[in-house]
């Protein structure tokens, strides 16, 4: 199904995905600002702060009872960092009228509730209430600190920091413990105003409704705001530095993360070839890494590659015995060489291609997955359906995949190992 791109006033746009095939309707606001150490925390607190209550429902219980009244509508915010930009996503998901006793259409009420959280939050003297602000600040701080608990994710983050130091890509979109701890209620209030005035704003609506009325509803609150959104550019240039770092913690299993730079990134790079290459290398159960590192050598339970198409970065990570880290690293690099030289079968290539095409097409099954698909595309304002991407992926040749591998360069190795004598990888 083709998305309908509707330009809105006030330098915004609406992507409409029509159809009533889902049990829910969904409205998503996508707000993109530069990711900077000085402003990240102020923006990062907003998803939690704005989705907990609003002026009309000024306590958490009252707000959640309102959501329950709307038949379990869910309203939440999140922050991500595609291409080193800070993107805040606010969504409201609500039941399709077919499933509401009495057939009531909840679109207008759900839409208004989302807009109320953005434009009519619960304020006191023009700023967020201290109680709300302090709770959300504490939650954000503890969330940042809690990232340490998941050692796989922690190791990936450490590798990114080493791979792209001094670049927004390596920054946590939630800020840092220091900047969050120092955040004031006035800074948070200012961040909300800045967001509404100066973020790139896209709306995504899934379902069928009176679109003209929706457009009017979305545009109306911005009438008094002078907006100056940024132009998005992503610096994908790199200089290889061949960095290696080992750290240790009280762990049972070592986590090895290898960072690669690939000269294939949005909007102009051969992203489709890179996607197929990533699937072949370590992006699916039939991949070369699964086959060789896990099944043949029994070195690990997981060994997977991932491709960030905005930044031109690939990460390969696995959990291994510390003594096997060298072996795993050697095999991972060996398989990349194999792809560069075309030492893989047509069957292996087609299996990888089929896997990634079907993975993308299955994202059409839920509004949540479709939201993720289109949110990612707002960065460069190019909107392809999963079918269209599937066709591009079908056109990728073996030589394209080899070339993508030759554009991929090893840069950083990070090893997080159990407490013992520190050795270089």
């Amino acid at each position: 199904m083709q998305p309908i791109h509707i330009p809105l006033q006030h330098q915004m746009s609406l992507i409409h995905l029509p159809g009533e095939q889902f049990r829910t309707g969904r409205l998503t606001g996508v707000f993109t600002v530069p990711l900077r150490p000085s402003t990240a925390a102020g923006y990062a607190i907003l998803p939690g702060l704005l989705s907990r209550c609003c002026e009309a429902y000024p306590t958490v219980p009252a707000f959640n009872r309102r959501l329950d009244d709307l038949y379990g509508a869910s309203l939440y915010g999140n922050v991500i960092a595609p291409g080193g930009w800070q993107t805040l996503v606010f969504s409201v998901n609500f039941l399709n009228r077919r499933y509401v006793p009495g057939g009531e259409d909840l679109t207008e009420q759900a839409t208004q509730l989302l807009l109320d959280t953005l434009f009519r939050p619960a304020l006191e003297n023009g700023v967020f209430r201290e109680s709300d602000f302090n709770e959300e600040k504490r939650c954000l701080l503890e969330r940042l600190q809690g990232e340490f608990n998941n050692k796989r994710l922690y190791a990936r983050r450490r590798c990114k920091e080493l791979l792209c130091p001094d670049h927004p890509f390596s920054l946590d979109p939630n800020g840092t413990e220091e900047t969050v701890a120092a955040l004031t209620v006035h800074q948070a209030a200012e961040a909300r105003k800045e967001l509404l005035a100066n973020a790139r704003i896209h709306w995504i609506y899934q379902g069928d409704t009176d679109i003209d009325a929706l457009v009017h509803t979305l545009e109306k609150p911005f009438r008094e705001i002078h907006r100056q959104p940024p132009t998005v550019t992503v610096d994908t240039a790199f200089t290889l530095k061949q960095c290696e770092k080992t750290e240790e913690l009280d762990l049972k299993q070592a986590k090895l993360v290898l960072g690669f730079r690939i000269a294939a990134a949005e909007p102009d790079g051969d992203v489709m070839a890179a996607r197929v290459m990533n699937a072949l290398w370590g992006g699916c159960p039939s991949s070369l890494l699964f086959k060789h590192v896990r099944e043949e050598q029994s070195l690990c339970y997981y060994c997977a590659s991932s491709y960030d198409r905005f930044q031109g970065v690939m990460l390969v990570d696995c959990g291994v015995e510390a003594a096997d880290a060298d072996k795993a690293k050697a095999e991972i690099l060996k398989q990349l060489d194999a792809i560069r030289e075309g030492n893989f079968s047509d069957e292996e290539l087609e299996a990888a291609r089929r896997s990634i095409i079907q993975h993308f097409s299955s994202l059409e099954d839920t509004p949540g997955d479709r939201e993720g698909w289109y949110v990612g595309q707002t960065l460069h304002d190019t909107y392809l359906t999963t079918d269209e991407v599937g066709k591009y992926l079908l056109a990728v040749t073996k030589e394209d995949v080899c070339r993508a591998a030759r554009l991929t360069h090893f840069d950083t190795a990070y090893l997080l190992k159990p407490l013992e004598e520190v050795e270089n990888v």
Partner: protein
Amino acid sequence: MTEYRHPLLGDTLYLDTHPSGLTVVVWPMPSAASAYGVFATRYGSVYNTLPTPEGGEETVPEGIAHYLEHKLFESEEGDAFTRFADTGASANAYTSFDKTAYLFQATENILPSLDILLDFVQQPYFTEETVQKEQGIIGQEIRMCEDNPDRRVLFNLLRGMYHTHPVRVDIAGTVESISHITPELLYRCYGRYYNLHNMVLAVAGRITPEEVWDACNRLLKPAAPMEPATFAWDEPENVCETLVEDTMPVAAPLFCLGYKEPHTTTDPADLAGARVLVELLAGKSTELYSRLMAQGLINDEFGAEYWGGPGFGVWLFSGESSQPEQVRDALHQQVQQLQQEGIDPALFETVRRGIYGRLVSGLDDPSACGELVMSHLLDGIRPLEELDALMALTAEDVHRQLCRRLTVENSTLSVVRPG
């Protein structure tokens, strides 16, 4: 197949018992992009014995159900993942306390993928070499789990709550316990529990009941009738410890508070009642949740749920807190207060409406639909019966359940602190 049209959802499901003995359910979703098939057996980590030729029971190594799950993908001809690679389907499997499930999701080549699923699960093949090879892989999976603080705080809780019931044992076992697994033991477990009378096939999404039934007719091998495995665990009603403490490299203390259900249940009214009760006790609509947040005692990691299975039932409240004992005390007080004062009917209706909406909202995904009906059937419940039970509940029903099923004294707090 018997048609069942759900009055609230408007969907039509198809349910029947195949002549081979397998229970089959199909949930057609014509507008879905994919189909999801799950072929599951009522065999998980808690079923830890096998009958002996002498008529007794012997205990099998911990982690064997999970080990069998890994090994079933291999056959003399090769690996099932390689076969699924030809269709492009995303295939996987998991082992829980009470079931093992093999599944695929595909947007193309759906019928060939279904054939592969039905075929490979019925073809056990275990040799010394293949069993030995898996030691390293599962060993690393176990190590990965050992580094997971959420898993540690949960299994410490279960060990504190349960004296002898095997739910207290990690599903994957230990590196030591899996070293005792042999091909012969795997074949015996397979023969005992992978009988089609003990299994369910659920397929949801872009598929028809005729297509599924045709695949069953072509591929299922008739199974000898079997009585479901019955276990009588000698498990007292009370918990064994009220506090279990541990340390790991974590940023802040994690906690799990568990109330032990004295009598386990698969009654749909009890399952629906549990969903309502966890919301009424500590959901975001409650003053308790607000108070705990305002006092800095919980953060947005806090959650509540009920889960149960053969011989066990746990009301679980978990999250992060610098003062987990205070969270426990506040929850105890909430339980007792609601038991004494009753349930506010207006709040009950609001919460029930929200749960209904959230349950229905989750049924766009063929995988969620397939998992739900498979799970219901393995528990002996008609598909979607829990949703019907939810709509039939009253505030008084829920209050009676609260008084019957939760006892403050019969609870355990598990804490993992930074260290």
